[in-house]
Structure formats: structure tokens, C-alpha cells
């Protein structure tokens, strides 16, 4: 492993940030320029992230120190395998979602607000993944949390405002909890750099408070059980592309933060010795069962998807809390899988809602024959979500299952299977109804190709990343796991 000073991680944040201002500047005069600049921003950012690939795969760590804000707390950038994995999947999905937005949003109000926000949040979200220390991570995390409020309340309906208020207050509480932990960590360790491990080496009272702070801050974002209450309200009310990002990507920032907390701030040894990781395990199990169970009862399509996200985040949390190699690998791979699946599902749901104007699952019977491509994409992603081979969701669950055996808790596999069963119970009826039942009262046509393309691409990646021997996300997860576990060893 080699550290290389490179400005590339900074560009990953700076480019979309600069584009935000550019979009803001041109949008008053031209809608076309605004749309194309947004697309360019998202595509360019993905290219910039991809440009780090050769270096990162060679096992190098890219670092860059920007400037000091207060003594000891600097803005630094550092991209290792884990950060790169997350940045890659995020910028990939973001790119597709931005392209999807061009047509989806063209009938919506306040597009001039939507696009700069979308690109700004891209910048701050990637900032989280390329941050070199917890302080930088915290700054970008807060920016992302606060500004995604604008996406949540985009529709400005009564429900949206209500969900948005809940969201912003909980986001602030989460942010403050993080700040508390950050300060405690800094006070104990004297540094918050992610290049270090074992920042809090001993189980102390302050250490436990910090642990809970991290758990609240990141767990809130990740939709962990008692703190998930904002999620099912906030995700469905946002415009569908924004829901795709909120559920597909932004939840993962919380998971990423927790992985960093487990492997950098504390250490697996210390956590398993003190038993603090069981807190996450228990919450994760409840999250899985609760999310899936409540999703069953939802009649609103997007709400059902949102609860499903809660359940799926449970897998990710479970994986990281078991602390074994396969479990962590499953956790990282599931971050990839869930990002692809859930954004595909939300985009498809958005397409259906846009064309039919209906969000209730009963009203969607027969839509599959009217919008075959959209619903096939939906089906692929849903089947992957259930965990049917050969899709990527199967691999995540398989590896997670292996991890559970490795950790000596094979019983958890039952939870995984139970949840898969529930996934099947709430996804399959939608699909069956869409293709084989009923008839749409008003015939609708397929959405434009710029909306189809992202969905098809996402659905296709769900398939190939489960099927192909050359499996980039899987390799990345394996390497990233080796990397973070290796640091510990």
C-alpha cells in the first residue's frame, strides 16, 4: 500500500460544486443549458471518480490535505478502496438519475431549484466518501443532510412539508450527536484522521457516549430501527428521482460512516471484547424484520419501497456488526446491490406514477402490459431484492449468510430467509398484478427513452453483477474488506 498525493479526490467534490454555481447562473436564461449542464456535471463527476480506479485498484491510497480550519482539524481527502467503492456506485447511480430527471422533472415546478440542489448534494455526498478524516466527513455529511431537505419537500404539499419538518429536525439531532462524538474522539485521540485506526482504544464511559453518538448520527441516516421514523415519510414524498437517490445512495452514507466508526474509530477487537457491536446487531435484526413486515402492510407503492429500504439497510447493518470477513464483505456488496436495486425500483415506480398518476398498488393492475420495459426493469430489481439467483441480491444474502456462520450465529440466517420471504410477499403481488391481472382504465404508453435507459441499465447491472464471473462490485467489496480488515490485523 502506498499513499499518493493527488488532487483528483478534490476534483471529485470541486467539479460538481463549481457546476452547481454554473447551473445556478445559467438557469435563469435557459432551461436547455441548465439541463445539459446538470447532465454534464453528473457524467463528468462519474468520469472523475472512475479516473481514480487504476490507482485505487493498484492498492494505493490517494490523499490530499487542503487547509486547516482550526488547529488539528483539517479538510483532508483520502480515497482508499472502501471510499472509492462507495464513491463509484454513488456517482454511477447519480449520473443515471440525473439523466432520468431530465424528462421526469420537465413537467414539475421549481426545476430551477431542483437541479442546482441535486448537483450540490452530489458534491457533498461524494465528499463524505472521499473525506480523509472524520471532521471533513462530518462537514460534508451535514451539508448533505441539510440540503437534501430541499429535495424532500420539493412537491411542497402538506404531506411533504410535514415529512420534511420531521426529516430536518431529526437530521439536526443526528448531526449534533455526530458532533458530540467527533469532539469526544478528538479529545481522546488528538486526531480524527481516517489514516489512523483504533482512535478510541479502550472502553470508557466517554468512549461509550461517543459510540452512541455515532450510532445515533449515522444510524439515523441509515434508517436504523428506532431512528428510522423519518424515512418512510420523507422518501415517498420526494420526486421519484430524488427518492431513488435518498433510498439508493444517501442511506448508504450512514452505513459508510458506521463502517468507518467500527474499523477506524474503534476496532473490531475492542468492539467484540466490549460487546458494543451486539447493540448494532440487535438493532439490525429488528430493523430487518420490522422494515419488511411493515412494508407488507403498505398500499402506497413508494411507501412500500421506502419500508423495504429500512429492511434492506438492516442487512447492511447486520453485516458490519458481525465483524467477520464474509459478513463485512456481504455488507459492502449489499451496499452496491441495494443501491442498484432500490434506485431502479424507485425510478420504475416514478415512471409508472408519472404516466398513470396512481400510486396505490391496487390501481396498478395491468400496467405491465402497457409499460412493459419499465415493469420488466421493476421486476428484475424486485426479484433481485427477494434474493433469487442469479441476481446480485442473492449474492449479498449468500455472503451475509456465510458471514453469519463464520460469526457463529447461524440462527441469523433464519432472519435473512424470513425477510426474503416477506420481500417476496410484498414484491411479487405487484409484479403479478402488473402483468397478469386487470386492465388499466386509461391506456398509457411507455416513458421516453431518457427515462427508460437509466432503469434498463440499472436492472441490467443487477443481473450481470450477479451472474458474470467478472464482477467488479464483488471484487471491490472483497478488496475493500481485505483492506479495512487488513489494517486491523
Amino acid at each position, binding site marked *: 500500500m502506498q499513499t499518493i498525493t493527488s488532487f483528483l479526490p478534490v476534483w471529485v467534490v470541486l467539479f460538481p460544486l463549481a457546476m452547481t454555481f454554473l447551473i445556478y447562473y445559467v438557469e435563469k436564461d435557459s432551461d436547455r443549458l441548465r439541463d445539459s449542464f446538470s447532465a454534464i456535471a453528473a457524467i463528468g463527476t462519474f468520469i472523475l471518480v472512475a479516473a481514480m480506479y487504476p490507482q485505487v485498484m493498484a492498492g494505493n491510497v490517494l490523499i490530499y490535505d487542503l487547509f486547516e480550519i482550526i488547529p488539528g482539524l483539517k479538510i483532508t481527502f483520502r480515497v482508499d478502496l472502501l471510499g472509492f467503492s462507495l464513491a463509484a456506485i454513488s456517482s454511477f447511480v447519480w449520473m443515471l438519475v440525473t439523466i432520468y430527471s431530465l424528462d421526469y422533472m420537465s413537467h414539475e415546478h421549481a426545476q430551477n431549484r431542483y437541479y442546482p440542489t441535486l448537483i450540490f448534494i452530489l458534491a457533498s455526498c461524494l465528499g463524505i466518501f472521499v473525506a480523509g478524516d472524520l471532521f471533513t466527513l*462530518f462537514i460534508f455529511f451535514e451539508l448533505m443532510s441539510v440540503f437534501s431537505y430541499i429535495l424532500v*419537500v420539493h412537491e411542497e404539499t402538506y404531506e411533504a412539508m410535514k415529512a420534511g419538518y420531521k426529516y*430536518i*429536525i431529526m437530521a439536526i439531532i443526528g448531526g449534533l450527536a455526530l458532533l458530540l462524538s467527533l469532539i469526544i474522539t*478528538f479529545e481522546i485521540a488528538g486526531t480524527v484522521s481516517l489514516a489512523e485506526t483504533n482512535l478510541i482504544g479502550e472502553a470508557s464511559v466517554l468512549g461509550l457516549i461517543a459510540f452512541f453518538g455515532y450510532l445515533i448520527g449515522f444510524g439515523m441516516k441509515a434508517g436504523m430501527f428506532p431512528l428510522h421514523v423519518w424515512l418512510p415519510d420523507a422518501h415517498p414524498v420526494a420526486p421519484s428521482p430524488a427518492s431513488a437517490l435518498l433510498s439508493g445512495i444517501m442511506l448508504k452514507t450512514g452505513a459508510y460512516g458506521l463502517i468507518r466508526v467500527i474499523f477506524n474509530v474503534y476496532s473490531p477487537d475492542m468492539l467484540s471484547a466490549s460487546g458494543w457491536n451486539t447493540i448494532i446487531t440487535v438493532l439490525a435484526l429488528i430493523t430487518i424484520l420490522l422494515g419488511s413486515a411493515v412494508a407488507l402492510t403498505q398500499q402506497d407503492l413508494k411507501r412500500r419501497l421506502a419500508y423495504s429500504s429500512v429492511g434492506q439497510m438492516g442487512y447492511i447493518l447486520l453485516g458490519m456488526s458481525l465483524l467477520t470477513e464474509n459478513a463485512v464483505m456481504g455488507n459492502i456488496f449489499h451496499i452496491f446491490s441495494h443501491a442498484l436495486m432500490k434506485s431502479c425500483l424507485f425510478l420504475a415506480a416514478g415512471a409508472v406514477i408519472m404516466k398513470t398518476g396512481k400510486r396505490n398498488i391496487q390501481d396498478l393492475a395491468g400496467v405491465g402490459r402497457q409499460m412493459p420495459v419499465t415493469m420488466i426493469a421493476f421486476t428484475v430489481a424486485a426479484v433481485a431484492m427477494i434474493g433469487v439467483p442469479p441476481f446480485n441480491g442473492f449474492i449479498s444474502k449468500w455472503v451475509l449468510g456465510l458471514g453469519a456462520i463464520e460469526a457463529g450465529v447461524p440462527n441469523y440466517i433464519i432472519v435473512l430467509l424470513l425477510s426474503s420471504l416477506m420481500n417476496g410477499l410484498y414484491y411479487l403481488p405487484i409484479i403479478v398484478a402488473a402483468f397478469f391481472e386487470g386492465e388499466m382504465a386509461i391506456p398509457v404508453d411507455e416513458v421516453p427513452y431518457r427515462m427508460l435507459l437509466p432503469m434498463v441499465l440499472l436492472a441490467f447491472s443487477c443481473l450481470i453483477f450477479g451472474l458474470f464471473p467478472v464482477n467488479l462490485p464483488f471484487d471491490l467489496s472483497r478488496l475493500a474488506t481485505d483492506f479495512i480488515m487488513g489494517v486491523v490485523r
Partner: protein
Amino acid sequence: MSHINQIIALLQDHSPVLVVIVLLVFAYMMPLFARWKKEWCAPLALTSIALSLGFTGLLTWEVFASGPIRYEMGSWAPPWGIEFLVDYIGLFMLITIGIISLLILTFGTEDLTHELKEKVQGWYYTLYLLLVGSMMGLAITNDLFNMFVFMEIAAISACAIISIKSDRECVEASLKYLILSAVGTGGVLLSIALLYMVTGHLNFDFIAAGLENVLYVYPNNILVALALFTLGFIVKAALFPLHVWLPDAHSSAPSPSSAMLSGLVIKIYAVVYLKLLMRVFPAELFTIIPIFDIILILASMSIIFGSIFAMVQKDIKRMLAYSSIAQIGYVFLGIGLLTPMGLSGGLLHIFNHAMMKSMLFLSAGAIIYCAGVRNISDLKGIGLKMPLVMAVFTIGALAMVGIPVTNGFISKLYLALGTLEAGKPFYLAVILASSLLNAVYYFPIIIGAFFGHHHHDEYGEEVEEGPKVKKLPMAMGVPLTILGLGCIFFGLFPGVIMIVVERAVGMFL
């Protein structure tokens, strides 16, 4: 050439006093110009503050080059003469006061024509300059006599710029302020007498030297003096139990006055109090009476109760005024923590809060000027009509809550680190709780201003809501923009101002 050099040398030598004198001289010229050349008043007042700021620049240069400057008035050496001492803390306050008051007055030149009657406008500049001058004097004074004089000037001019609108509310508020502030200054005067009685001096350094010797001879004198000082300054700085005058005064005054009072005036007393505690009273005294712990308790009560009171306000300026009570609590929290990080945070918060709060009051003023509304419930949808003003308000509110990339975050971070440094994590909880409370009362305003007003009537037409607004004048837009950008700049590069703050803290600890 040599003449010019001589003049420059002369100015340089006398710059500590010129900083103040310029303002006082111009202040007394204002009524004259108001009669003779009305349109000259505003530019002249701005010029005088700019000049004073120029001298501050000169002083900064000198102090950084060769350390703190002592200036003996009329070359009478202390203990007989009165003395100015420009050290880092004084410099820090001069810079803060100069910059912020210049921006506020720029805004005021436009706002005052709207808020005040024609014939008092000239007088307003007089009072404003007197207030700025006396605060600058307070920042660099090194003896109790001068301090008292400047405090009185500041109190009277502050009172007058509250009551200048001469409607019922303002007069009532300023009367309340006058009485309470008289109690405060009375206390200060008494304690000056008590200290003079035991030491025979008025100069800070000489008193400090004297007190070392007589601490155990006249402990009661000194304790009572400390108590009275504390009382006086707490009233003036509006710390929790004695804050009652502030909400009325700050909300009813013209907006530039409110910005001035909330942004600067209450802070200067905190600084003078800090100077007295650290430089005049002997450290041994604080082993007898734990004054810093008392400050900490009052500060946290101020933080929590100020925020809670702010939550229930209906008038936007009143809400901002209560928020000031909470924020002055942060400054005192920093003083009470007495650790390098904590004190840095407290002092830095003086500068940061001066920016944020004056910005918030000015944007509230701009809303009152352009839209004529001041009830929080009437502010719905205002962000779409006055995007600049509400954007600036949003930055200020985010800074109040302590969202990163704003200056408020930096001072809270310092304070939070200070609490752990001092081993008092309880106050960390206070800081975090108050951030949440701030969010609870600031965010609904922003949300209401920008979102939730996308209504269509039954024909699908966009519905216009709320009051019609006037265009924002340039003189208001520019200071607001500068302050808004400043909040973000100092959130990213606090080092620029921390250079001074660190040295000021180094002086004390």
C-alpha cells in the same frame, strides 16, 4: 517630503486616541451638517467610521510588529494621567466594531430615511457615532475612570438610538433600559469607589498591583467590588436573570440600532468584564469565590432560557432579540470555561455573532422596509419575493444553529472542545441542546419563507400570496451580501481572525 513623513509619524503616534477622537469629532459635526448640507451627513458619518477603521488598521500593523501599545493622554504618565492600552483583545474589538458598524451604517443610510422622522436623522448619526466611539474607547481603555465615562456615553447614546423613533413602545423600552442600565452603572461606580478606596488608583495595572497587597487586608471591599462589577456588567451584557430590558429595547428600536445593540453593544461589556477579571482582580481572589463557576451557570441558563423564550415569540425582531440573550451566553460560557480553547471560542463568538446577528437584524429590517411585515406568521412565502434577503437570513440562521461551513459552527466547535478541555462535559450538552433549540425556532421561518407556497387556484393558475414588496435598495443589499459571504468565509478560514484571538487568549492564559 519631510513634512508628510512627519505628519504620518504624528498620526501613527497618536492613532490609539485618534481611533476614538475621529468619531467623537464627527459626531458633534453631524447636527451642523444636518441643518446646512443634509445630504452630506450619511457620507460623512461613513467616512468617519472608515477613518477610524483606517487607524485601526494602522494600529494592527504596529501591534503585530512591535507588541501592545500604551498611549498616555497628554503625555501624563499613569497613575496620574489616563491611559489607552491597545493590546490584542482591544485590537480584536476595534476590528470587530469598526467593520460591523460600518456595514450597519451603510444599511442604515437607506433604512433611516424610512424609519425616522426627517428632523431627527442628523441626530441619529451623532448618536450612532458616539456609540461607536464610546465602544471603541471601552475596548482600549486602561483605567476605570475612562471606562466609566465611556460606559455612560454608550448607555446614553444607546438609550437614545432606541427611543429616537419616539413612539410609545420605543420610549417605554428605552426607559426600561435607562433605569436598569443606571442600576448597572451605579454598581460599577460603587465598585470603582471601593477599589479606589483600598488601592488609591484608577489605572488597571496599578490597581492590580495594589490589590495583590491588600487582598487579605480588605477582603470585603474587594469582594463587594467584584460583586458589583459582576452585577453591572451582567445587566449591561443582558445575561440571563438581568436580561429583561433587552427584548423590548432591541425589538422596538430602528433596525440598524437593533443590529448595533445586539451585534456589538452587549459584547463590549463582556470583554471589559473579562479584562477586569483577568487583569485587575488577583487570581487568588477566585479561590475564595468561584466567580467563573457562577458565570458558567448563568451563561448556560442564558443559553437555554434565551432559546426557549425565543421559540414562543411572534415578532421576528423580538425573536432575534431573545436569541441574542442565548448567544451572549456562549460568550460568557467561553469566559467561564477559562481554557485556551474555550476562551478562544467565546471571543471568536463575539466576532461571529456580531456578523450573524447584525445580518439577521438587518435582513429583518430589510423585510420590514420592503414588505412592511414583521410577524413571523406573515413571512410565509417571502423568500420567493425577496430571495437575497432571505438567502442571507438563511445563512445567518444556519450559522446560529452551527451548521458546518458557517462561522457559527467554528465558534461552537471551539467552545465544545473547551468544555472537554476544562473537564466539564455537562456544558457540552448545553451547547448541543441549544443548537437544537436554535434549529427549532429558526428553521420554521426559513421553511415558511421558501417552501410550501406553491398553490394553484381552481383554474390551475399560480396564486400570489402575501404582501407586495418594494425593490431592495442597493445600500441595503450590499452590506447584507458582504455579511452573508463573510459568515461563510469565516466558516472556512477562521484562521484569519483567529490570529488576533489566539494572541488575545495568550495574553490572559
